[in-house]
């Protein structure tokens, strides 16, 4: 186990290194200058500012300097506003991760319940309801949903804050908006898997032992139905990152999404690098966790790297 984790970890580092290198050269090759107000700057001043950020040096020197800083945990300072990239990321991070994690967990829990109920009560109204929810969940774009939630529940009904950040109530609507596609995906997967698992021979074995339906569902069916659902969690977590971009903007959540897109379009090199590394680490770790979960849920998969 420890060896496996170590091996995975070193692979993660290599992957990350490739990503950093690729992104670094890509972003530096984009047309345009990273200076914000260059319009009113004299060429001397522009050169001065570029020199301050070390941007006047040859690209490969910049690259090695950046790597050097990175090894020491220094992500540099944002060119757009001179703040430390780490500080800005940590700021956006807590909000994004909070609504992201809450949305993901909410989505998984509701998705599981819906999926299981639909599979157990096949071809009843519960099933239709769950199928309907999941179809709507994948069919309605998250931004339409988010705007609608903010307007109707936040403004018209006034049940919850329409947007902004501050108290726990503020996190509810964004999390719900984020959870919707998760509910849809998870409930679909779990239902399909559950239906299949319920028809498995070992379910019959369990039933033949005289165990109650609830115990069969929880102890035997759920765990097995979860295995494939776990596989989609990696992509889902990545999807939440994309989704959060729009949701954060609509609900005025001070998260990562806006920082990220802004930094790319404004060519804030250090910020782009910082957020790319951040997101990549997030995705890679999500995939890693999914693999670990896989092993925990399914004993047949030995975590020795011999999985295929």
């Amino acid at each position, binding site marked *: 186990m420890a060896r496996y984790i170590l091996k995975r970890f070193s692979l993660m580092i290599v992957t990350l290194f490739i990503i950093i290198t690729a992104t670094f050269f890509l972003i530096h090759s*984009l047309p345009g200058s990273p200076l914000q107000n260059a319009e009113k700057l004299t060429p001397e001043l522009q050169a001065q500012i570029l020199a301050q950020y070390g941007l006047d040096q040859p690209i490969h020197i910049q690259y090695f300097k950046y790597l050097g800083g990175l090894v020491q945990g220094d992500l540099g300072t944002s060119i757009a506003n001179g703040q430390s990239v780490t500080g800005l990321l940590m700021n956006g991070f807590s909000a994004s991760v909070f609504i992201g994690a809450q949305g993901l967990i909410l989505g998984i829990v509701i998705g599981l319940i819906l999926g299981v109920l639909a599979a157990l009560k096949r071809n009843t109204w519960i099933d239709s309801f769950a199928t309907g929810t999941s179809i709507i969940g994948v069919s*309605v*774009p998250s*931004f*339409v949903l988010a705007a609608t939630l903010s*307007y109707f529940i936040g403004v018209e009904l006034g049940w919850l804050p329409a947007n902004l950040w501050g108290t726990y109530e503020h996190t509810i609507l964004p999390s719900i908006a984020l959870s919707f596609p998760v509910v849809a995906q998870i409930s679909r997967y779990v239902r399909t898997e559950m239906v299949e698992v319920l028809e498995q021979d070992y379910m019959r074995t369990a039933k033949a032992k005289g165990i109650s339906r609830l115990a069969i569902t929880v102890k035997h069916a759920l765990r097995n139905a979860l295995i494939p659902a776990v596989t989609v969690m990696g992509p889902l977590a990545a999807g939440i990152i994309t989704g959060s971009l729009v949701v954060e903007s609509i609900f005025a959540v001070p998260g990562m999404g806006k920082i990220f897109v802004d930094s790319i379009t404004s060519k804030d090199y250090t910020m782009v690098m910082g957020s790319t590394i951040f997101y990549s680490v997030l*995705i890679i770790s999500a*995939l890693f966790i999914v693999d670990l979960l896989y092993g925990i849920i399914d004993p047949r998969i030995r975590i020795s790297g011999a999985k295929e």
Partner: protein
Amino acid sequence: MSTEKTYTPELFEPIGQLEKRAEQLNRKQVGVWKDAWLRFRQNKGALIGVALLLVIGLLAIFGPLMNDHNWETQNLAIKNQSANIDGHYMGTDHFGRDLWQRVWYGAKISLEIAFLAVFLDVVIGVTIGGISGYFGGRIDMFIQRFIEVIYSIPNLIIIIMLLMWMEPGILAIAIAIALTGWVPMSRIVRAQILKLRSQEYVLAARTLGASHKRILLKHLIPNVMGPIIIAVTFSIPSAIFFEAFLSFIGLGIRPPEASLGLLISEGNQILQLFPHVLLWPALVLSVLMLAFNLVGDGLRDALDPRMKK
């Protein structure tokens, strides 16, 4: 023998074995595709999906012929009309342009982008997945590491950079979507091929000296068609979705052109004032997604009975 019925003796005449008829009585052997079609036909949801797709497809083509307006002419005097006046079936937008025209024009553009993106997905995904799965070993190892890297870069950064390089248009957006969209396709193809590779008929073909290309084209590809078709029907709505997302954050199609995502983005800005501008394109987009998902579900159930509900 309580109920003694009367039988005539001729009923007890032997007729012998009807073996041939017995064979006939056997259920007809149905081909995989025909069988899938039969199953698909039974799926009400899938049929509704097909019908919806047909309706939207026809409207995207012929809808613009149904009134006397066009998608780009502005008339600020009648902007943001929600009522159906003067043939503006869906009202007008913030420039007084006809929404009916714009919605169907936008649907057409969205579909074009989605089809193009998915086509590229399939080409890239099948090629890479096929090579990876078929040759295995080092090549597979290398490609899989490569995919892992691609998968771990936030796809937005690739897409945004690409769109800063290329003139944003149908092709650029389709490429941007396909650039990261081929990964799941290649995984499916690879997994299928890995499974099939070890099977006997491929082995047989190999022993008979068939070339790699021939084996791939004649034996393997036809067998992975099912999963590819299923993946395609699910890729199309996600491509539509992604285009809408890009347009929503201002990176997709540029106004005054229209796509469903762009129309929704425009509508969202005036949601609280003129909800109809958001409502119509959002509705068409949702129905389109719904239809593709229904058809996808139906196809999956039909082509992959293991997944049957």
